């Protein structure tokens, strides 16, 4: 079955100075699916992608894309992949259509073919009206779309999408999701990095959770969520005076520790069994504890990380004390 692997990596290492940005990553990504890379800033997601996309040479281990080694057969890899980075990798001084014509020519299309292809893509991506404008005048969502269009001037067999929705409004994010779904439906494998569990859950068949350059968990979204509980219950009370009663009642009914927030009114509890939540909320009403609002959220990336690593998904990942300090501060404030 090794022929069906889009990406295979064994013990991949990339070192920058004294930082092991990628520290022994193993991967086996089936072709024809979306594979999610979930992790905080600085976890090593982008560095791993840059090695797989032949932009960086690994310092250890090996990786192949569709069976081609990323170091020794870089050109063969390049002819199968496309990369859309975190920042629009297009020429902002050129117009949308000029960018796509340039890439079409570099891929080997004739002038006329490249022009036709650029027109088709701009139409498909809802950018026909902006075709003749310089990309620097595009909105964030339009930039992201022209960037993805630039990656599919010839639809690649494997597409790397590095945080494609970071900083986008919900409408643009949904458009990017639609594009990713269309890509996979037409046979492109996608490696997607994201900081949002929600996004990985929506799109990815399998997810690798990355922390400090290592894969710390791997599986389907369902498996990952099962390992961290189904989320958190947030409750805001009417009366601060009843909070202690509410903490006791909820921790008994949910069988989980309940945390009190600094505002004196809010409570948060992890939830393993969602069924119990309705009963617990009803019980609050019965004993006369007023609830102003409540929500049952999916586990956040932070909760996934807390469950898997015991430390929050802090950007400041090399400072081990940060998480502990924050917990202490919250306790003091409460």
């Amino acid at each position, binding site marked *: 079955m090794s022929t069906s692997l889009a990406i295979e990596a064994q013990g991949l290492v990339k070192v920058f100075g004294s930082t092991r940005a990628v520290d022994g990553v193993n991967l086996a990504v089936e072709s024809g699916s979306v594979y999610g890379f979930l992790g905080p800033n600085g976890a090593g997601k982008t560095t791993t992608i840059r090695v797989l996309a032949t932009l960086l040479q690994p310092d250890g281990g090996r990786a192949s894309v569709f069976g081609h080694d990323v170091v020794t057969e870089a050109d063969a890899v390049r002819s199968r992949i496309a990369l859309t980075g975190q920042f629009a990798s297009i020429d902002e001084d050129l117009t949308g259509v000029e960018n796509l014509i340039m890439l079409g020519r570099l891929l*080997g299309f004739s002038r006329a073919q490249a022009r036709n292809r650029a027109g088709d893509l701009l139409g498909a991506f809802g950018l026909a009206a902006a075709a003749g404008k310089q990309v620097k005048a595009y909105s964030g*969502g339009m930039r992201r779309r022209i960037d993805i269009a630039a990656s599919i001037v010839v639809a690649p067999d494997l597409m790397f999408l590095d945080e494609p929705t970071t900083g986008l409004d919900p409408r643009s994010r949904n458009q990017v999701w639609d594009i990713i779904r269309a890509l996979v439906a037409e046979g492109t494998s996608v490696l997607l990095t994201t900081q949002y569990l929600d996004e990985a859950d929506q799109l990815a068949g399998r997810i690798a959770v990355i922390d400090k350059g290592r894969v710390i968990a791997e599986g389907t979204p369902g498996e990952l969520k099962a390992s961290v509980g189904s989320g958190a219950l947030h409750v805001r009370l009417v009366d601060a005076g009843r909070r202690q009663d509410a903490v006791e009642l909820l921790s008994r009914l949910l069988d989980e520790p309940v945390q009190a927030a600094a505002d004196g009114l809010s409570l948060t509890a992890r939830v393993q069994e969602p069924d119990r939540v309705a009963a617990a909320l009803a019980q609050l009403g019965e004993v006369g504890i007023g609830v102003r609002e409540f929500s049952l959220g999916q586990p956040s990336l932070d909760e996934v990380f807390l469950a898997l690593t015991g430390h929050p998904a802090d950007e400041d990942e090399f400072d081990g004390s940060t998480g502990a300090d924050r917990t202490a501060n919250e306790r003091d404030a409460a």
Partner: protein
Amino acid sequence: MSEQATAVAETGTELDDAGLRRALTVRQRPPRPSAVSASLTFGWRALIKIKHVPEQLFDVTAFPVMMTLIFTYLLGGALAGSPAEYLTFVLPGILVQSVVMISMYTGLNLKTDIDKGIFDRIRTLPIWRPAALVGGLLADGVRYTLASVVTLTVGVILGFRPGGGFVGLVAGVALLLLFAFSLSWVWTYIALIVRSQQSVMAVSMAILFPLTFVSNIFVNPATMPGWLQAIVEVNPITLLVTGVRGLMHGEVTAAQLGWVFLSCAVLVAVFGPLTMRRYRVKN
């Protein structure tokens, strides 16, 4: 950079799902382009950028004019007795200095590409590796030619009448362009090893200032102390100015040209491979 680009309204920006599906069925790559075709595409891109950002031509037009006027009238009387006599001596040198200064932008443009991310996209394309750099140099040739034409036109208006005639002028510019192409590999290498665009400028200037001033551009080296003459005589800019001056005045020797060709060959042989090596493994 121009701030005149106004935001494009978000109209008609819905995805066309059927069109998208259709677009995604184009999966067969055409044969990869030849080295020449890929380089020309990058050259086309650089020329289009000049069209969109014409301000960048300010450097290649206003700068040479200012240099010519300032040096001719400011120093001419003192250094050569009269501005007209000095012009005959200094104009080929001013031309060299202008174009050599402009060649620095090759590095700056490359650094901009690296910082913007387009560099990464280019490097994931299966094309002839040096195409992006060579294509940039082709477009630079247009800017160098423009700067040369402007400088020489101003010079002729002010009374520059070289002995080599029109052919001499063209040959002199051609030699200068060849040298500028060769020198550009130094700037591309610098762009690949420093951290910021500001550093590219700073390092390039630190190299160019001594190189252009400690030369025979402005004064005859015979007036300098012996130790300085020794330095000036091996400065490649001096060799180039001697060659360009010789061609324009119609009194060049084969040896003078040979030294320029040798300088070019050394620059390319050393900094070409250095650049391409960094280009391949750039982090």
